[in-house]
């Protein structure tokens, strides 16, 4: 005999709703605390140091609603995505070559490690000296700063593929294209998505540096204008545009992960 009465439909719904609110509350709490501290500081400091977040909100709204200002945001987003796509394509190709040939691996690994040690700002200087076109300069900087990470992450994913599964697929004598479609692509996809998530954050920081120095538009350029005007509310509003973008793309990538990787077993006990 059961000692507890079965939950009714409405109480179960209420329980789920409460759990969802609790989850939302716990993830929003850190942001709420930071906002409150900032807003509190704005009461005691001058506007150019800690502007009211209400001002920042109106500035954000102005950027969203103004065609020319939002075009700057879009330009920066396009630069980030183009740079990441370029680095991913080149890095993926290099990783394939490295995994196929030990000689290529021995040759390229030290070069990529060397690239990893070069600061983003140095690439900005090199690009200004070497190239004329603004867009190509920024694309070059974005690719060079994210290329090593993409290459090493794809390389690691390729090397980490299960030998047993690979041998099983080989036993069916697949063509190269089929091997890639049925085995390699699904096996490395989780690492590729992680690589995109990591590099997205890096790229959003680098693009601002690149635009600060070499561009005539974009979020970085606008940040430079705000610095010259000593307009902290403007600087925050433009920074938030990039933050929103990163959060939206990260959210989309997480959604893709939840959908594509539903085959994964989930342990009831957390790590």
């Amino acid at each position, binding site marked *: 005999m059961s000692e507890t009465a079965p939950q009714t439909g409405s109480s179960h719904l209420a329980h789920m709703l409460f759990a969802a609110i609790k989850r939302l509350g716990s993830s929003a709490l850190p942001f709420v605390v930071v906002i409150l501290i900032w807003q509190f500081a704005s009461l005691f400091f001058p506007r150019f140091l800690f502007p009211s977040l209400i001002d920042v909100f109106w500035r954000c709204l102005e950027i969203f609603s103004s065609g020319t200002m939002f075009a700057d945001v879009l330009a920066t987003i396009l630069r980030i995505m183009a740079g990441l796509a370029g680095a991913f394509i080149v890095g993926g190709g290099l990783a394939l070559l490295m995994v196929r040939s030990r000689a290529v691996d021995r040759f390229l690994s030290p070069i990529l490690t060397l690239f990893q040690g070069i600061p983003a700002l140095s690439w900005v200087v090199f690009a200004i000296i070497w190239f004329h076109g603004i867009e190509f300069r920024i694309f070059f900087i974005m690719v060079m700063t994210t290329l090593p990470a993409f290459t090493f992450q794809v390389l690691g994913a390729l090397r980490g593929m299960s030998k047993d599964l690979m*041998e099983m697929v080989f036993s069916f004598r697949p063509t190269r294209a089929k091997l890639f479609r049925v085995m390699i692509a699904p096996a490395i996809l989780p690492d590729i998505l992680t690589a995109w998530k990591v590099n997205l954050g890096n790229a959003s920081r680098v693009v601002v540096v690149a635009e600060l120095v070499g561009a005539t538009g974009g979020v970085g350029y606008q940040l430079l204008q705000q610095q010259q005007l000593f307009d902290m509310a403007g600087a925050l509003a433009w920074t938030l545009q990039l933050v929103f973008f990163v959060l939206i793309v990260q959210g989309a990538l997480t959604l893709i992960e939840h959908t594509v990787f539903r085959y994964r077993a989930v342990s009831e006990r957390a790590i």
Partner: protein
Amino acid sequence: MKEGVTPPEVAIHLDHVSKVFVTAGSEGAYRAVDGLNLDVRPGQMLALLGKTGCGKSTIFNMIAGLTEPSSGTVRVSGRDPFADFDSFRGKIAIVFQNDRLLPWRSAIANVELGLEMLEIPTAERQATAQSWLTKLGLGGHENDFPHALSGGMRQRVSIARAFATNANILLCDEPFSALDESTAGRLRAEFVRLVKENNKTAVFITHSISEALEIGDRIVVLKRPAMIAYDVSFDSGTGQQERELIRSRIGDVLAA
């Protein structure tokens, strides 16, 4: 490439086959197979029996075309399975020791894998995969991912995957060794029935004498490095007393 003459009416032919692995250590080379001669007739169920490390899996990989022999000739249906790798598409199927299911594919999609390589149209592919899953008692689990299936169910999916391509030659590397005896016994009986019904040539690797006696109509006992120490054929008419004699003889050979 060394050309060998394959005797007629031979599905698998190994002629003076050796395999030497170059090791990284100071020992230099490890001889896994040494001058092995072996013929398997079409429709025969050969059980390859031997202790761990005697070279069974190396022979298996050479017949499958996954490993190249260092010397000698391997022929499957008259062709070199390593050099003519692609020509064996759909002709050799393998059941591995562990299920090796692709975790991102459902049970039915795993069974369809070999059929995809053969460019079978989707509808036909799905019908074939569905039919094999049903035959193996997995109806209703078509859309389950491997993590949601038990070990026995996963191994049944892998057997369905091997049979679905309708390959003439089946290679099995201790496919039931990771299962409990009751499940393994059921699957073994099912496997033998399917092989006989579909008239396949099968090479079955095992280290269990009982399993070899249950599965094979021929047992080859290997000694390290893979050389034939005992070779015996029998059929369903072979009596229990004679089987016990074979078991005893195999035991002696393995213990020697």
